């Protein structure tokens, strides 16, 4: 344990320039975290606006145009400005070098560049919002997006730019995992969060260029009238869907793999138990990343693609499901013969298992072609991907924040409030999205600003619970930042959950500007709860 630490990265060095020009991965991570959460709140408010409009049929609160703008911005902000950049950008940046025992990521300057590219891209998105929005849906399907008079170009340009930030971060992480591990920390001794970030990074650098090319082609078509996707110019709108989903399906794994990594850390630490099936979880991360590239066609089951393609895409889709399923069983079995504490991170992890299992299983319904044809583009799909993206990724992200908060920022939040908010998120989430499965089965199409009377009951139910969900998430995050404002400091050597990976055992809280005061020596694996007892140390 390290005592009497005088310096930490938050207070040393001082001054605004030391933040703006910082090369410290932890500071860059914190900047990603703050900007990510701002966009998360923005996207969340838009979502509540939609739910308010949908509480009753008819345009009683906003017009159809406004609704179309709001749902497009909700999707685009949540995906491109929050989920994709924020989890690797915030938790990944702060933790990856600490976990492998490095002083920083492999290319610190590139890391800062990544953040500024992200911010620059985000400016285009903000410009889109103040300039009247964009109404094409986050998918930008042609020919609507080539004809729409809204801000398609600024938004796609923003996404194009943010893509580079994604690629550079991925590159940085891959180099860091390969080259910066301390001696003794072999691949199979790495915390699984590192494996998850590694898998994510591989997808980021291979898939994102395809999105960038697609966005460039879309802009070329709008500016120069070159017919690529618009049939009026001799293009092919289905080609656009192939290009788009060739990126956007792997992007689902960019979003969910880090969440798998977070859960693989939280459950063993809070159960004080060696993780079940380490190698399986590690390899399934890579295989999911790979198979994720081969299933994009299941987004196009009603587009009129050939029967043969339908069969092949349906078949491969199930191959993603199986390793994911075994992962869930491994996480549950990890608790066997452990010492489970119901701390806030653990509550989030357990609710992740509940919600993500529903998200995963409802994917099986959508993978069956005959059934998907009925469910395609209905609220069933909306509910399914929210169970995966919010119930999965965002719940895991909140769990990860609560898990590493005392480590990253040296302060402890109020754990009772955190637990109450975690329950609120769980209840509010199910209340909001479970009725949407029924809506979809009964035939309610998605992206509708108004709807017929038969759907009123379920919609108003969903709206009611979305308020509870919104409040819970808001207070959960306020509770975290409040501990920071209140300077509710933990002891610098603090390891409140008894974690065993390097960030818990070899650094102070918050960490030293150079991470480790002396070169860390590898002593035990991240999950060796059967070999070594690491005390839980936590003092206010």
């Amino acid at each position, binding site marked *: 344990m390290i005592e009497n630490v005088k310096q930490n990265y938050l207070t040393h060095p001082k001054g605004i320039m030391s933040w703006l020009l910082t090369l410290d991965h932890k500071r860059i991570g914190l900047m990603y975290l703050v900007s990510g959460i701002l966009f998360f709140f923005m996207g969340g408010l838009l979502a509540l606006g939609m739910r308010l409009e949908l509480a009753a049929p008819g345009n009683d609160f906003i017009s159809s145009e406004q609704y179309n703008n709001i749902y497009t911005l909700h999707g685009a902000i949540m995906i491109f400005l929050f989920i994709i950049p924020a989890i690797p950008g915030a938790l990944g940046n702060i933790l990856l070098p600490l976990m492998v025992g490095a002083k920083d990521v492999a290319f610190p300057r590139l890391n800062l560049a990544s953040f500024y590219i992200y911010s620059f891209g985000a400016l285009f998105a903000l410009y889109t919002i103040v300039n009247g929005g964009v109404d094409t849906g986050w998918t930008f399907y042609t020919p609507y997006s080539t004809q729409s008079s809204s801000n398609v170009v600024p938004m796609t340009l923003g996404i194009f730019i943010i893509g580079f930030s994604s690629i550079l971060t991925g590159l940085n992480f891959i180099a860091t995992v390969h080259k910066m591990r301390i001696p003794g920390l072999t691949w199979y001794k790495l915390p699984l969060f590192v494996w998850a970030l590694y898998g994510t990074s591989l997808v980021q650098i291979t898939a994102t260029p395809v999105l960038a090319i697609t966005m460039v082609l879309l802009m070329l078509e709008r500016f120069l009238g070159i017919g690529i996707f618009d*049939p009026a110019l001799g293009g092919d709108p289905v080609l656009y869907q192939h290009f788009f989903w060739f990126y956007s399906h792997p992007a689902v794994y960019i979003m969910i793999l880090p969440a798998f990594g977070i859960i693989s850390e939280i459950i063993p630490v809070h159960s*004080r138990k060696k993780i079940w099936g380490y190698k399986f979880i590690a390899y399934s991360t890579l295989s999911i990343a790979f198979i994720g590239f081969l299933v994009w066609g299941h987004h196009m089951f009603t587009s009129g693609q050939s029967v043969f393609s339908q069969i092949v895409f349906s078949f491969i889709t199930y191959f993603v499901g199986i390793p994911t399923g075994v992962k869930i069983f491994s996480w549950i079995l990890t608790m066997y013969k452990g010492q489970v504490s119901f701390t806030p991170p653990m509550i989030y992890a357990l609710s992740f298992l509940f919600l993500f299992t529903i998200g995963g299983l409802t994917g099986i319904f959508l993978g069956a072609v005959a059934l998907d044809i009925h469910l395609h583009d209905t609220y069933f799909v909306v509910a399914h991907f929210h169970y995966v993206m919010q119930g999965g990724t965002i719940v895991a992200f909140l769990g990860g924040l609560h898990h590493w908060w005392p480590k990253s920022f040296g302060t402890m939040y109020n754990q009772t409030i955190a637990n109450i908010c975690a329950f609120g998120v769980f209840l509010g989430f199910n209340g909001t999205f479970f009725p949407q499965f029924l809506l979809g089965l009964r035939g309610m199409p998605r992206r509708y600003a108004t709807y017929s009377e038969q759907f009123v009951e379920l919609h108003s139910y969903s709206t009611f619970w979305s308020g509870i969900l919104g409040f819970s998430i808001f207070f959960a995050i306020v509770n975290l930042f409040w501990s920071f404002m209140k300077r509710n400091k933990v002891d610098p050597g603090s390891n409140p959950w008894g974690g065993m990976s390097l960030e818990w055992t070899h650094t102070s809280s918050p960490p030293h500007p150079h991470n480790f005061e002396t070169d860390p020596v590898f002593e035990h694996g991240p999950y060796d709860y059967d070999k070594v007892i690491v005390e839980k140390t936590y003092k206010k």
Partner: protein
Amino acid sequence: MFDWLTEFFFPKQVSTFASDIDNLFYFIFYSSLVLFLIVVIGMVYLSIKYRARKDEPLRLTSSKDHSNLLESLFFIIPLILVSITFVWGIRSYLKMVIVPDDAIEIKVTGVSWFWTFDYPDGGQTLNELVVPSNTPVKLVLSSKDVLHSFFIPVMRSKMDCLPNRYNVMWFDATKEGVYDIFCTEYCGTGHSAMGAQVIVMKPAQYEEWASELGADDDSIPLDELGARLYTQKACNTCHTEDGSALVGPSFLQTSQMYEQERVFDDGTSSVIDDNYVRSSILEPQTQIVAGYQGVMPTYQGLLNDRELDALIAYIKSLDGDSQI
């Protein structure tokens, strides 16, 4: 399976393949429910059984981290279930794509934001698809502008409509009635109002209906015919009768402003008269009322002269104080 359950989850089953698809749903639903319960019960049981007791000292925990038997089961059981699902999904799907030879063919066209239906013996309807029961019906779908998707929940069928390309779907309706049609591919402002209805009739009744289709009904007064066309031709998607603005200006406003100047978005203006209304229906992009977007499609070819006269008469009749 159980009727009340079907009513709870799904709309009515009207096509021949609907019950097969619903049964596939129940198969996945019950298998998923079992897997889900294993996950949740396992999670709750293990976390409570092995919870850390109060003031229990930290101890070295079990090193057990794998079990070949359990892992094989977790691999094999889901594999069997998804294999059944996959094969079932494909078999049912093939029934949905192989169109019987004796199907009658109806051409479906999506236009922002209404549907037109062209029948084999001539004649066209708008937002009302009329089909005979117990007869295979093949729909050939395309779009005039952006993507649309043609969804009939009771038939459990759906297909995208693309410009410059034809997609095909078919169904064989088993029950007479009137059912909803939705557009499920986002197509702009009027997307959520782009609904239509499918009317399933007995074959004899359909024959009679089809033979009358296209014949003018001269007996109805013009303004009554116009009122009927107002909903039949989907004017009501964008134009209200009560003065409130939707996508386009309200017909009531147009009626009240008859013989008065109307300002357009390019700064020009014109007096509202019968010619203005006629050209606004046939060439909607030439004069766009200030404050609105030029998004209306042309009705050229969709309305005959008498129908145009009827709509003009109907719009004029909306304003009670009008002298006309």
